[in-house]
């Protein structure tokens, strides 16, 4: 009798502790950085809206959303990789590579749209797979491997084409401008991608594995998480996101440019860091990344409207990064 009471006490205590831990985990994920980043988005947009008539034009606002799609795609992939404790410096080059190949093969043929979209995504996934396999099989530093991949792909892209190439069918270009009422189709499509990414990270076994691996690979392994497989999947997904972002650029620009997506690997990391995902992995949410992407999008749009010099833009971006990382909470002190 006594023992069963003790047991039920213990199980009550256990479930209470679980509930407490769940709330703790929730509040830890919804920490101040997410509120801060959205407050900043609202503040900057409001400021820009008051200051500039062109900014608050509804057409411009949907444009801002549409312009964040490419960065958003890359930042989603980057978030997955960084949550798992890695980094992908090659995502922008994966975007460039897969898109360039697609652009070269198009030849203005409308019937090729679907197969080539599939091919582009497959190339992205394959390059991500390559990153993941090198990193997990030979214990190489993810930063340096993907940085090396950056260099290799850069060279290969220039070998494929040294100037803008490809004849893109009009039906493909129409994807960019397709509208439902006043809203470009691609905006709700992208919103659903964000929701899918959020569900993937917060509601699935794979999402929990990402957090576990990023938090501590050792503990994750002891908890029966397949660490290399989780990492490889993260890189594959990042490659897929990169390819998708690149294919969207292709619909916008209508030409395969061997210089496209320049600097996006860094911007995607900045968006992730701004959104409060720990750069050493395991903490933060994709919701924060969305905030980071929106902030960068609004600021870029403001820069354009105000015609800020390129060097000043670069200075400000660098300063923002340095300030963000200087206030960054590390795993050790956290």
């Amino acid at each position, binding site marked *: 009798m006594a023992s069963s009471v003790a047991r039920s006490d213990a199980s009550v205590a256990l479930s209470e502790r679980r509930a407490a831990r769940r709330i703790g985990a929730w509040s830890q994920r919804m920490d101040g950085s997410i509120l801060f980043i959205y407050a900043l988005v609202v503040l900057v947009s409001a400021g820009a809206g008051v200051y500039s008539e062109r900014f608050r034009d509804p057409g411009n606002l949907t444009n801002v959303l549409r312009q964040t799609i490419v960065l958003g795609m890359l930042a989603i992939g980057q978030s997955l990789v960084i949550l798992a404790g890695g*980094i992908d410096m090659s995502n922008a080059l994966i975007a460039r590579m897969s898109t360039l190949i697609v652009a070269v093969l198009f030849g203005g043929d409308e019937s090729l749209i679907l197969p080539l979209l599939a091919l582009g995504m497959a190339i992205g996934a394959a390059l991500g797979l390559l990153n993941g396999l*090198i990193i997990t*099989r*030979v*214990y*190489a*530093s993810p*930063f*340096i*491997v993907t*940085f*090396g*991949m*950056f*260099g*290799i*792909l*850069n*060279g*290969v892209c*220039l*070998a494929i084409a*040294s100037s803008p190439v490809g004849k893109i069918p009009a039906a493909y270009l129409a994807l960019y401008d397709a509208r439902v009422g006043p809203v470009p189709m691609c905006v709700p499509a992208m919103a659903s991608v964000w929701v899918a990414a959020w569900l993937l990270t917060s509601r699935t076994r794979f999402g929990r594995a990402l957090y576990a691996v990023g938090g501590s690979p050792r503990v994750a392994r002891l908890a029966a998480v397949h660490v290399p497989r989780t990492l490889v999947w993260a890189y594959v997904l990042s490659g897929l996101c990169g390819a998708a972002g690149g294919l969207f650029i292709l619909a916008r620009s209508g030409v395969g440019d061997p210089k496209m997506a320049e600097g996006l690997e*860094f911007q995607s*990391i900045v968006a992730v*860091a701004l959104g409060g995902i720990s*750069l*050493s992995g395991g903490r933060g949410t994709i919701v924060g990344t969305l905030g980071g992407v929106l902030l960068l999008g609004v600021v870029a749009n403001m820069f354009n409207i105000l015609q800020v010099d*390129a*060097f*000043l*833009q*670069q*200075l*400000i*971006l*660098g*300063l923002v*990064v*340095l300030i963000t*990382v*200087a206030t*960054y909470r*590390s*795993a*050790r*002190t956290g």
Partner: protein
Amino acid sequence: MSATSLPARALRSAAPSRRFVRAVDLTGQWAAPVACLVVLMFAVAFVPRFYELGNLSTVAIQASVLGIVATGQMLVLLVAGLDLSVNAVLGLGAVIVISNQQGFSPLSLLLALAIALGVGLANGLLVAWRQVPAFIATFGMLIFVGGVRLAYTHGQASGNVPEWLRVVGIGQIGPLPNAALTWIVVLLLTGGVLALTRYGRYVYAVGANYDAARYAGVPTREVVVACYVVCSVLALVAGLVLSGYIGYVDQRLGTDFNVNSIAAAIIGGTTFRGGRGNPLGVAAGAILLSILLNLVVVAGLAIYWQLAVQGVVLVVATAIQGMRGHLLSR
């Protein structure tokens, strides 16, 4: 390439044999000098133009500049860090010293030195005190310093290189270019400090095991900061030598040095987990990479294949050293 597929297979068995560990260790340490010899022999057979006297001295000067940067990069890698701001420091330093419209003044040299010290200090403080991942802190610095440089020059090239710098860049003493002499001095100093002084032992101790070093009373943070500062200053020195060699500075000066210095340091036997590596290996790495990049040009291939060569060397080297670090630390 077989070095990368072989370990993967062997790893699946529980414990790799001792001979295998030894083999990977030796590969990691001797890859650069051996590959140098192989590539040089390859060049005898297929690209004889490589051995023309003018080309050889070009390679020597390029290897020297890269070697100076890579020596600094190695110091940072030894304490398990990474410096991606070297090419920005290299470029900004050169711009400040050279594009002074009133001609050269010693003051600009001091200013450039102050900037290099400041950037290294900021990198080191961010990494050691704020525990920011090294690549993100230094990458942010790269963007920022790059912006400063653009703001300073507005993208214009300048060809106002002072005479003494031209002497350093392209002059020779006997058969040896002055740039190579500068490199040898840097190598002797770094090698001497690492091998003979207490600070040198601290660097290896911090890199091999940060916490153990701290418990043993090593001022770990200060050691890390010092490595970043020295790395920045060496990047500045390399920038001056390079601009002396080229004879002008423009926006593209030094853009490849991030990838190349890391690749040279790692192929030369430095592990990115810290604690392993020496200046001589890195020197071999710098020579190997310079020869390869030069061969791309001399063999008549398009210039963008250089990018691919850099990437391949980096990935292969990283794979070997990653394997080595993993096997040696288990």
